[in-house]
């Protein structure tokens, strides 16, 4: 068992208990044992003076793509978990669009074992909704849950068949399992590479209209209402979706939603000069969408921030815009981008941001065994942030194997200086 650790003199923010006060945090045997002032360190304890720093529950990311198995040159479970730890994340949820697809208990168990071997941030597998993510036959949810899956999703692709989505939501109820959907009407989005709007018109690139997302959001909400299942809407990007989710939540439908740091901060203007690092799906949209997403996150209409960390080899992005793959990495910039853009701007308080990046995502996927709280007795998944640290994004310093970020050179404020998983320090700056 790891040595006891005492984090002394920090500002403790624990949204699970509405706590925000100066306090010490004592960690023993992998658990939080005390939060309070003037705690004494047991013999042999690691002591860290975190005066002026923020002590918070470790961040939780419901949406990352690790490329193992299949594309280990771009990311592995271990390198992704290392990047996560560096970003202040103690738990991340890996999407199943690996090669082969994580659509059975053996594949799910492999992710769990690789996560254990890495011993860094926890990696929770998400199983596929359909076998091979082909959108035809349901995967074995029950067995995948037994092996450690925390949700099911065909992310990367939408669940196109409304019948399959209906049965997935119904069947998942047995296991209290969220069904996470990548909302995109494939016919409306076909061939699109960026948001459909003035910028795509000028650049001559085929657009993906906001409606391609909103119509699927509407369908999923209707099916969640029909089935009583829990639908989780991935990476929301447009104001039309926000309006539908707000109305659904008011009616008590079991819907949760996430938004990425890039959709909260960038618009389709980032695609100017055909910058392939601004190419992701769903695409960056307009300023009015960014404003609506920020408002929805603040209100809780959107539950949490998720990175949609999507590593790609550098030379894949070194291509014409049409030919480059969708996706950006985000684990190592997510907190700083959100902190700089949402907290420094005065829109969010720091406890509000930590709630949306830790406590709320842990709740959405019912994560047990660490995450989202510093309550005494809980597993000690803790992050310490220096919210005054100024740094600029240099992809060469990333722990991720990939470098495809739209935030290259961006000046940011705030970063994780210490990350602890189950009482063990997994990252220290």
């Amino acid at each position, binding site marked *: 068992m790891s040595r006891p650790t005492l984090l002394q003199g920090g500002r403790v923010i624990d949204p699970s208990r509405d706590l925000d006060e100066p306090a010490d945090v004592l960690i023993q045997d992998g658990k939080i044992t005390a939060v309070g002032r003037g705690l004494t360190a047991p013999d042999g304890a690691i002591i860290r003076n975190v005066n002026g720093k923020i002590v918070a529950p470790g961040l939780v990311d419901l949406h990352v793509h690790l490329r193992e198995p299949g594309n280990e040159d771009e990311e592995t479970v271990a390198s992704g978990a290392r990047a996560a730890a560096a970003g202040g994340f103690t738990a991340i949820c890996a999407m199943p669009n690996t090669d082969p697809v994580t659509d059975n208990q053996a594949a799910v168990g492999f992710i769990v074992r690789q996560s254990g071997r890495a011993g860094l941030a926890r990696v929770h597998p998400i199983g596929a909704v359909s076998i091979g993510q082909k959108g035809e036959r349901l995967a074995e949810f029950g067995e995948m849950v037994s092996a450690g899956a925390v949700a099911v999703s065909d992310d990367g692709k939408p669940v196109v068949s409304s019948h399959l989505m209906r049965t997935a939501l119904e069947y998942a109820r047995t296991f209290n399992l969220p069904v996470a959907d990548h909302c995109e009407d494939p016919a409306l989005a076909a061939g699109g590479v960026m948001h459909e*709007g003035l910028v795509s018109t000028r*650049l*001559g*690139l085929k657009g993906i*209209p906001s409606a391609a997302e909103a119509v699927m959001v509407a369908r999923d909400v209707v099916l969640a209402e029909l089935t009583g299942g829990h639908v989780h809407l991935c990476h929301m990007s447009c104001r039309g979706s926000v309006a539908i989710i707000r109305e659904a939540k008011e009616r008590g439908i079991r819907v949760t939603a996430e938004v990425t740091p890039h959709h909260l901060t960038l618009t389709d203007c980032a695609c100017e000069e055909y910058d392939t690092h601004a190419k992701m799906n769903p695409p960056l949209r307009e300023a009015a969408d960014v404003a609506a997403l920020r408002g929805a996150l603040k209100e809780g209409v959107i539950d949490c921030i998720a990175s949609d960390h999507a590593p790609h080899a550098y*030379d894949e992005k070194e*291509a*014409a815009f049409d030919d480059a793959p969708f996706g950006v990495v985000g684990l190592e910039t997510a907190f700083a981008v959100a902190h700089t853009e949402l907290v420094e701007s005065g829109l969010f308080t720091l406890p509000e941001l930590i709630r949306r990046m830790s406590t709320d995502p842990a709740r959405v996927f019912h994560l047990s065994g660490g995450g989202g709280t510093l309550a005494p007795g809980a597993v000690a998944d803790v992050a310490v942030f220096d919210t005054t640290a100024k740094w600029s994004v240099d992809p060469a310093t990333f722990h991720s194997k990939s470098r495809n970020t739209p935030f290259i050179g961006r000046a940011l404020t705030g970063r994780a200086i210490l990350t602890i998983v189950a009482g063990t320090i997994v990252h220290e700056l």
Partner: protein
Amino acid sequence: MSAASILGKDLTGLEHMTPEQIRLILDTAEPFKEVSERPIKKVPALRGKTIVNLFFEASTRTRISFEFAEKRLSADTVNVSATGSSVSKGETLVDTARNLEAMRIDMVVIRHPSSGAAEFLGRRIASNVINAGDGKHEHPTQALLDLLSIRDKHGKIAGLKVCLVGDVLHSRVARSNLWGLTKLGAEVAVCGPWTLMPRGIEELGVRVFGRVEAAIEWGADVLNVLRLQLERMETGFIPSLREYYRVFGVTPERLERSPKPITIMHPGPMNRGVEIDSRVADGPHSIILDQVTNGVAVRMAVLYLLAGGRAELADAAKRGSE
């Protein structure tokens, strides 16, 4: 290698060019027109320069026009087409670029199905890059020859009402024309079925008409009729070519509504009886073949200026061979 030119290193589009740069190209094209009228159609302006015509998409008119322009300026040229080259063997655009660069060339003329391909290439190689059409983005030399043809016909561009008719959504010719015309002071409109109008086009300072009749009532001086790609019907943008002709075709009957003659242009190749009626294409106000003639002169001007030639010397360069 490539001397700094008044136009910058590359010609990738008209959107970011100044009106002065556009006028300079048109003015420089004037003395080059005459070269093509000579029995010996050659001047030594680009002697010793190596130019690669890199065509990733089928093209007859544009490729031949560039090739004539290059040869009439005495450049050494190589044509590379996508089929039968390393491109069809899966080579990436960036590798193609690096290999060309390694062969120490001076200029690349590129046609590519992906928007932004010319800019992509231009940022990665030291040679001058000329965009001969990239995806649905721009086709700057086409717009320049259109501008020159309008100026020849009307003696001016500023103040004229010009309407682009047809498939604006998929048209790089439309985008380049829109920038060039607005920069030189023309009033610009677009017209066609709403399925073929790009989102936000009205924010670019143009009028949008749903019907050809409305553009004629607006008082258009020029209709530039865009080619309708025949596959648009298969992909559901229009129900049939027959209906397209009946509703949106530029016909003598529609043009008769105008109290004044309307100049008719088309970038080619034409679908007679679809977007344009043969009687209009072959009629007295059509300048479609003048556009083709001007294409060579405009491309000579672009090549000459990008190679570092000075506009006031274009006449002298021409005389050098006499």
